[in-house]
């Protein structure tokens, strides 16, 4: 009986539960639509079908509640997705950011009706400046990638302002996130790819050969996506500055160093932070993020607007009027204010002491896991190095010996109740797992994760087919991605038209 029930309900889309003869719910206002539309110009009215589902309120609640149960999430599973910092999202941050005074405020409300939210944003700007060692922070970028865009656009604005048009290149390490080169291109730059040496550091000799009057800047993540701290960062900063370039810090891995070392002290001119990582705002199934940018003194005039300023006890918006050289607006108003609020609340709850503990325990958890995996016979990509808040396993040996690749291990982990680490990134380590446990995981969960990997390794040895067919216990088995791309079905009504 249960099985029948599952089969009937599980595969349904909301559209399949719709019936257009069903009358709408109590959620809509009571009004005669036809009377109103008569007052509008006839030739502009909608003649085409409006296919939105007509479903009862309870049935909608049940449909989406059941869908939610098909997800792994931080609240339900260990989620060691490298470079994504899947730490606990305190519920207080969400509850308090949803207070009616915050959610109901129109972005253009008069400043006399805005002092509360502006004071929060102002304090957050200051806290982020302190945490990163930058001179000033603008909160407006709506995601990490937009923060990156703002950062590189500021580098460009700086060179343009100095009439230094020969600078056409941005240097990006081969281990970098894909957003780095994509961003550089959006800002009109050519990308030069910088190789990494076998210790996971930037290849200094290659860098030397690459820089010159054509260098606009370099984009670095530190600790890098290889999970190690770039030890020659000061030398790199000096080299770039000597040729007139600027340094961009990708804040993806800020969680590893919070309260230990500041990007500003490493010589970076501009940084972005991912508040959905380090400051624990929700990942939300893929957004919304928030990607504030911080700058050194020389880039201050170019920051994106608006920002919050304080004068005579009154908060006010800094706009192009005060910052005529600003790169401009990145969103209609001030970015993802509701997400910024959550980050602010998180920062208050942690305080100075808690922020220092973030990097400490993120690093402790990562190094503990690394050692446990090494002891269990897994190959560590950079065994000579200290892990930062994350590290890389390479499963190339297992792929060769048993024919079970990193994706097979990842899918089998799902059966054991663990979300898989990041797979096949960074691109330069074969069959890799990028593992980031975060500071909020307990030792028992880390031990459970190692145990699961040991069991899977055992399975790979004994019966590799088990891995290749995994997962078995999830709502679906392994999905056909090739079919998804070849026979595009992106829209129910288009693909299932009678």
């Amino acid at each position: 009986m249960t099985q029948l029930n599952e089969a009937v309900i599980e595969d349904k889309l909301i559209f399949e539960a719709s019936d257009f003869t069903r009358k709408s719910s109590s959620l809509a206002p009571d009004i005669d639509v036809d009377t109103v539309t008569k007052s509008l110009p006839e030739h502009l009215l909608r003649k085409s079908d409006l296919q939105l589902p007509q479903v009862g309120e309870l049935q909608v609640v049940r449909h989406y509640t059941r869908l939610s149960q098909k997800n792994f999430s931080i609240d339900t599973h260990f989620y060691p997705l490298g470079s994504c910092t899947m730490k606990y999202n305190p519920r207080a941050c969400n509850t308090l950011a949803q207070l009616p005074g915050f959610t109901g405020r129109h972005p253009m409300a008069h400043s006399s009706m805005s002092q509360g939210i502006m004071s929060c944003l102002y304090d957050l700007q200051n806290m982020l400046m302190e945490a990163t060692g930058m001179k000033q922070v603008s909160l407006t970028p709506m995601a990490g990638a937009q923060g990156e865009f703002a950062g590189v656009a500021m580098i460009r604005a700086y060179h343009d302002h100095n009439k230094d048009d020969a600078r056409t290149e941005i240097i990006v390490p081969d281990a970098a996130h894909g957003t780095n080169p994509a961003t550089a291109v959006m800002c009109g730059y050519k990308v030069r790819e910088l190789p990494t040496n076998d210790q996971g550091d930037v290849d200094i000799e290659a860098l030397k050969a690459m820089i010159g009057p054509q260098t606009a800047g370099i984009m670095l993540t530190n600790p890098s996506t290889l999970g190690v701290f770039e030890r020659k960062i000061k030398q790199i900063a000096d080299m770039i500055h000597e040729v007139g370039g600027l340094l961009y810090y990708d804040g993806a891995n800020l969680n590893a160093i919070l309260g230990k070392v500041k990007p500003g002290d490493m010589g970076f001119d501009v940084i972005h932070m991912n508040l959905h990582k380090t400051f624990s705002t929700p990942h939300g199934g893929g957004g919304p993020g928030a990607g504030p940018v911080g700058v050194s003194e020389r880039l201050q005039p170019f920051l994106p607007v608006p920002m919050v300023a304080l004068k005579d006890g009154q908060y006010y918006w800094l706009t192009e009027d005060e910052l005529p050289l600003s790169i401009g607006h990145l969103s209609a108003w001030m970015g993802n204010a509701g997400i910024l609020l959550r980050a602010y609340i998180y920062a208050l709850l942690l305080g100075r002491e808690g922020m220092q503990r973030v990097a400490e325990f993120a690093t402790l958890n990562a190094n503990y896991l690394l050692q446990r995996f090494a002891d269990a016979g897994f190959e560590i990509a950079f065994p000579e190095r200290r892990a930062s808040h994350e590290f890389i396993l390479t499963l190339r040996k297992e792929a060769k010996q048993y024919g079970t690749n990193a994706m097979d291990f990842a899918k089998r982990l799902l059966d054991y109740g663990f979300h898989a680490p990041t797979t096949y990134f960074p691109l330069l380590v074969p069959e890799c797992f990028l593992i980031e446990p975060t500071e909020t995981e307990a030792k028992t969960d880390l031990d459970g994760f190692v145990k699961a990997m040991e069991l899977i390794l055992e399975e790979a040895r004994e019966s590799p087919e088990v891995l290749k067919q995994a997962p078995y216990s999830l709502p679906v088995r392994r999905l056909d991605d090739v079919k998804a791309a070849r026979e595009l079905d992106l829209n129910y009504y288009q693909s299932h038209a009678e």
Partner: protein
Amino acid sequence: MPYIPHTSQEIAEMLSVIGVDSIEQLFDEIPPELRSDGLDNIPSRRSEMQVQRLLTEKSMQDGTPLCFAGGGAYEHHIPAAIWEIATRGEFYSAYTPYQAEASQGTLQVIYEFQTMIASLTGMDVSNASLYDGASGLGEAVLMSVRANRKAKSKRILMPATVSSVYRQVVETIVKHQGITLDIIDFDRANGTIDIDKLKQQSEPFAALVIPQPNYFGCMEDVHSLTDWAHEQGAMVIGLVNPVALALLEAPGNWGTQGVDIAVGEAQPLGIPLSSGGPYIGFMACKQKLVRQLPGRIVGRTVDLDGKPGFSLTLQAREQHIRRSKATSNICTNQGLMATATTLYLAFMGRDGLQKVAASCVHNTQALIELLKTSPGISFPFGTSVFHEFVITLPADVDQVIEAMAEEDIVAGIDISQYYAQDGLENALLICVTETKSPEDMAFFADTLNKVISDLTGGAQ
């Protein structure tokens, strides 16, 4: 220790496994001269109880005024169930569905979202959402230039009837790629695109942007504009309000061929005003342009057993595969907002959304009727409106807004700041949605009359 579950015994065990004496030793690869432990300007931690009290005070400080402002951010009723469900931990604390089998909830929601947006806009396919409407328009402009190389032009015709703030955002996003935005003037009598001036364009252009309704709340003659642009070999980008589409023709059916790209802000569909974000941009297009779309896209496929399921698809367009050759640097969508939007449209359904839209139109017309008798107020534009309209005031608009704020009313948006050089002085953009009762509108009109009378010394 907040959010750190480790006991001292566990810490000791972990350090011993690693083979170090202290946590501090784990940072020994960072050059000592770079180290800085100082976070002096960050306050000490507060308990949840203290933070709750502080934040409650701050939120109350901004009040819960009666809001008549729109201009791209709209107050609508949000069914209680939406955020109850959207903030379930399984949606709230999941990430981008890289592991499809463990993310079927998020993936199916996005597939349903794409279907609803495609249906609403009358287009073939939608992506999984973008940051917001303004940046979404920027992405649409980039896409139109990518997709219309045969126009041999990187020029975009951007009407002045598109929000000035949106135009600024687009400029920021596209200016480094050699794309220029040529502003098309508006007709002073109608508040819509000046079609005569538009038709004087002789140089080729890649795309024309058509807002519906436009920033002034007025309705553009979308059919003839779309056909004209297509005759010039250009693409058409429809910038639309999703609630208005319940009553107004979908961009996919404008003119004889429909627009090429439809884009807009989905905030009106269940997302709170929240000081301007997080919101959610939507973007839909014709099938033949699907490989030019930026952002995530979810497809329906089957698993090993032939059972239907969902996964991210067409990833070869994206930055994590294509790197410097990607269609955009966009990494994620606005997942949580897309979830809320999908819930809103599912709860409302076709009939519900039509009623919301009709109620907006009805209330807007009612307030216009009330204000017609107000001394000194004039209506610069004669065109039909959806749920926003412009009035010009016989007093300083900023002073009016400030005085209205003292009566706990957000009166609207001073648009003279954007259009003063176009002769729109002391102009106020007012929005009325289904949330306003007849009493609210009467209170607004009475207060406005009184404020104007006070400011003009009773001259009006």
